[in-house]
């Protein structure tokens, strides 16, 4: 733990990595951010979407005549009308198709059925109520467990020959080898573990402004996207517009968390509307629409098994997962990874064998699956293994910290290939665990717990140790719809020594305008304040796949360092001319080159920039200007890790959980801006407490979504979370140019199991080994009364 006073550092900003306030914050705190909904264009019209009130029904008829008669309505478009243009269906990011507007059936409550374009938002919304849709109700498939049952209604009868609700089967690891270690194990613990459906709930909902210029044949789309370049390519493929005539602008984005990775029907509707009416069209969904129709997260029903020796040596882990993908398989994951990176479910432990099997099914629920800072399903994987280790500790009557310590992968084993084939690049786990235990005062907490238990008080201490796999990814393995997951970066140094760096990734609040300026500053010695960061505009940035899965720093951050080094290499040659010395005789100290042994003879990067653009000769073969471009293809993912400890108290009378303390020690390799890292960790921990204790998108038996507002879908407030206690260790990534690893999702991945483990630990006197999230007071009370599975 380092105590740094941020106020002190305001006036002495680092010339590179280090703690500094965020460059973008003055505009946000002064209300000068510019979001999609702030875009106002001359003659702009407003679009509202009619959504299905039911989960599963055949559309008998759609009567739009009354809506069309509304004086302020300019157009009403149905699925049938889109079908005539060949636009009723679009590809998803998982090679399925999804209805832009329903033609044959509606398949989840909230599905897009028709849209209205009107002069103002109010009129568009009012006119929706004038559209008369006749539905022929069908039985919905709500429970994933019965989706494959004989006689279950077939949701996707749009797919040729589809006769069931099966999406895919997937497996990883070695089934026979795993069976063998389970057979020889002294102890096998089996637990049914559900990671419920949750929602990323960014503060800003999704939306777009489409402006089609029919003279130029050019489409400009402002949209809430985490991946502007990938979206542009997909629009070109779907709509048949030439890619160079499409400009996607992702301005300030009010939170993404994976919710803004998919292409939603609403974006396509806005584009179609602008094409149809010839004017700019804005679509901005409301909160309920965001909650009921956009990319959810998780929804994995897992049976986990862990095998060990009597003395606590973990031998194997296996799992069988039922994955609920909703009505369309629209999860955003690399093509070859239908289960995302769930394959890292062996966690941070050196085990002998592992195996996972998964079946994914369609249900009459909103599509999605990969979202909410999950690192492509690592949330589910880490939750599974960290729950299982605690279940094992329960059965062995072992201390969960020592049991983990005993099984951690050792530093000399890196790079470590897991039993499911992931190559962990680096790690030194034990010190991270010990640092968390030191901050927590682990032994004292256990002593306090023993005293309290003797008095009948319920106190729990929960641990989790996680390893993430982030920074997708090497293009030989990873693509989304055929687009390789590499990222470009371009750096220009202006004559006066100021610079602009253009990124392919896009910030939704992560602080890119600061972090990336610092990465470049560290390499070329130009102060971060003198480096402008341009992002989120396909016309003004190089191609790349965007920000999600904690990939910005691992991929694009590497690109930024590499492009800066490329510029520095050129600067060295120019400096050699200026100093009349050989390039090999020059020494770089941040911001200037000097002749070795003669520090008085030096030139600054700013002087070099002026020479690069100015009059006078440059060394032979060197062009004017000081700029470069790279495209970085990562060699491997980066593998950040962390140790988290949560302390809870439970009111025995009301079963309410109070999170008293939370200690998070993260290792994300090289730390570029510790303040930004801490901010990311704080946010993720808050999310984790929310998921563990209160968040869930649930449905009634008819498939009605019960989480359609923030009165029903609870997010934690400052009152539910403690003052976070953070710490860190540093194990640089060996293959990343600056040794950095992603950290944006570490806390979301690592914190839910720590909270749940703490609650379950508190309930040990009741013989509780597992209880499913969200651990609301009612569910905790159920667990205290011997019902691990909630009674509702």
């Amino acid at each position, binding site marked *: 733990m380092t105590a740094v006073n941020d106020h002190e550092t305001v006036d002495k900003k680092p010339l590179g990595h280090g703690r500094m306030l965020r460059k973008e914050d003055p505009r946000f705190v002064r209300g000068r951010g510019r979001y999609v909904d702030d875009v106002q264009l001359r003659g702009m019209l407003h679009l509202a979407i009619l959504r299905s009130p039911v989960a599963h029904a055949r559309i008998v008829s759609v009567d739009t005549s009354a809506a069309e008669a509304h004086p302020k309505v300019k157009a009403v478009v149905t699925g049938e009308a889109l079908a005539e243009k060949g636009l009723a269906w679009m590809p998803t990011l998982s090679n399925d198709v999804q209805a832009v507007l329903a033609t044959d059936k509606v398949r989840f409550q909230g599905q897009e059925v028709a849209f209205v374009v009107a002069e103002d938002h109010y009129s568009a919304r*009012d006119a929706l*109520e004038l559209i008369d849709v006749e539905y022929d109700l069908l039985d919905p498939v709500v429970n994933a467990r019965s989706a494959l049952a004989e006689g279950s209604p077939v949701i996707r009868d749009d797919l040729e020959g589809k006769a069931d609700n099966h999406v895919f089967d997937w497996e990883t690891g070695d089934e026979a080898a795993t069976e063998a270690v389970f057979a020889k194990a002294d102890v096998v613990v089996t637990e049914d573990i559900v990671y419920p459906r949750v929602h990323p709930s960014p503060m800003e909902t999704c939306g777009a402004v489409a402006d089609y210029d029919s003279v130029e044949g050019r489409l400009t789309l402002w949209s809430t996207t985490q991946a502007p370049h990938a979206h542009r390519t997909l629009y070109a493929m779907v709509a048949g517009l030439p890619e160079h005539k499409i400009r996607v602008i992702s301005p300030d984005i009010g939170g993404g968390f994976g919710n803004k990775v998919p292409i939603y029907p609403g974006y396509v509707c806005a584009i179609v509307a602008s094409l149809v009416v010839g004017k700019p069209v804005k679509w901005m969904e409301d909160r309920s629409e965001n909650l009921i129709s956009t990319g959810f997260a998780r929804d994995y029903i897992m049976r986990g098994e862990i095998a060990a020796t009597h003395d606590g040596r973990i031998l194997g882990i296996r799992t069988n997962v039922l994955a609920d993908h909703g009505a369309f398989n629209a999860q955003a994951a690399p093509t070859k990874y239908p289960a995302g990176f769930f394959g890292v479910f062996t966690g941070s432990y050196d085990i002998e064998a592992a195996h996972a099997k998964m079946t994914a099914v369609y249900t009459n629920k909103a599509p999605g699956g990969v979202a909410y800072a999950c690192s492509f399903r690592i949330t589910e994987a880490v939750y599974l293994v960290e729950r299982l280790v605690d279940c094992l500790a329960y059965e062995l009557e072992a201390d969960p910290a020592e049991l983990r310590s005993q099984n951690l992968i050792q530093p000399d084993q890196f790079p470590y290939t897991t039993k499911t084939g992931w190559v962990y690049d680096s790690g030194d786990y034990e010190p991270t665990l010990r640092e968390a235990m030191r901050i927590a005062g682990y032994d004292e907490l256990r002593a306090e717990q023993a005293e309290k238990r003797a008095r009948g008080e319920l106190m729990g201490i929960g641990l989790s140790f996680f390893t993430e796999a982030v920074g997708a990814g090497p293009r030989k393995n990873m693509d989304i719809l055929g687009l390789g997951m590499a990222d470009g970066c371009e750096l220009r140094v202006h004559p006066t020594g100021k610079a602009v760096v253009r990124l392919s990734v896009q910030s939704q609040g992560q602080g890119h305008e600061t972090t990336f300026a610092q990465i470049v500053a560290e390499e070329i010695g130009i102060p971060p304040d003198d480096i402008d960061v341009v992002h989120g505009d396909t016309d003004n940035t190089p191609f790349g796949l965007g920000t999600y899965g904690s990939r910005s720093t691992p991929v694009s951050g590497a690109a930024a360092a590499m492009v800066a080094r490329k510029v520095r290499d050129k600067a060295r040659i120019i400096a050699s001319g200026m100093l009349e010395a050989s390039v090999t005789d020059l020494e770089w100290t941040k911001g200037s080159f000097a002749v070795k042994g003669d520090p008085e003879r030096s030139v600054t990067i700013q002087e070099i920039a002026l020479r690069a653009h100015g009059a006078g000769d440059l060394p032979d073969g060197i062009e004017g200007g000081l700029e470069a471009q790279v495209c970085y293809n990562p060699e491997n993912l980066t593998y950040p890790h962390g140790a988290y400890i949560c302390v809870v108290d439970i009111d025995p009378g*009301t079963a309410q959980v109070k999170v008293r303390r939370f200690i998070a020690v993260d290792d994300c390799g090289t730390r570029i801006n510790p303040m930004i890292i801490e901010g990311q960790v704080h946010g993720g921990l808050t999310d984790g407490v929310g998921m563990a204790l*209160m968040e869930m998108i649930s449905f009634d038996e008819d498939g009605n979504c019960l989480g359609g507002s923030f009165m029903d879908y*609870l997010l934690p407030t400052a009152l539910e979370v403690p003052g976070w206690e953070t710490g860190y260790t540093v194990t640089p990534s060996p293959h990343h140019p600056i040794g950095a690893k992603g950290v944006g999702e570490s806390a979301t991945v690592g914190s839910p199991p720590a909270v749940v483990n703490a609650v379950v630990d508190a309930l040990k006197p009741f013989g509780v080994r597992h209880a499913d999230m969200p651990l*609301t*007071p*009612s569910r905790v*009370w159920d667990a205290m009364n011997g019902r691990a599975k909630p009674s*509702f």
Partner: protein
Amino acid sequence: MQVPAPFEYERATSVDHAIGLLDRLGESARLVAGGHSLLPMMKLRLTDLEYLIDINELHGELGYIRVEADEVRIGAMTRHRELLESTELAEIFPVFAEAEKVIADPLVRNRGTLGGSLCQADPSEDLSAVCGALGAVCVIRGTDGERLVPMTEFHVGPYETAVGHGEMLVEVRFPVRPGGSSAFEKVERRAGDWAVAAVAAAVWLDDGVLTDARLGLTAVGANTVAVEGIAEALRGQAPSEDLYARAGEIAAAACAPTTDSRGSAEYKRHLVKELTRRTLRRAVAGTGRA
């Protein structure tokens, strides 16, 4: 942005003006006070009102807490925040400040009113239980003058009150009796959430013996603002843990919670027992301080 359907807006400048507007505009008109229940319902298009009559200008006329010797009178436009911050009220009825502390959040408490809370008649709303426990009487004014309705008869069903056409709730009166105190306990999933269950208790003691006791419950079904049989069971008894437990059993039997995302019916019934014990215990302790 969620937007309501079209409606007409009128701003009342006096109670008589508001009643006149209600009388003239009929069933399609609704009063808006703090608006924290009505406006979300309008935005979710769950209401079909045509006229909204804004009575926020009546805060001067109806925003007051008047403490008299044998009665406290609170104007219907008194805001949550004023109820929370009144030390005079907290001394006589601690239950008020205890409930207000856990009602929604500061934004809601700055605007929401006592009258609005009672008239919304949401079974999960907290002040109705408080008023029930304190034996409040509601003053309803119409074109023909005022009438008094006890809190126990004020709600005629979920989201329905005794306030008729062309009438409005203007004041709530609370009898003050010696030897009394009160307490409120609520379990919520998160700060600002509606209650999973809540209990308001009021007791009156004389010489170590209970002379009266009342309980109001929240979020556990309809008609729970005053649990029947509590006074009969507790009156004449010396306070004890057994007695509180018995009261809890009576309250749990008297309510009809349903299972929903806030919790199972069984758990809510358990909470009623637990919170009844806790509120009675604290209310009895509070009588010593008065």
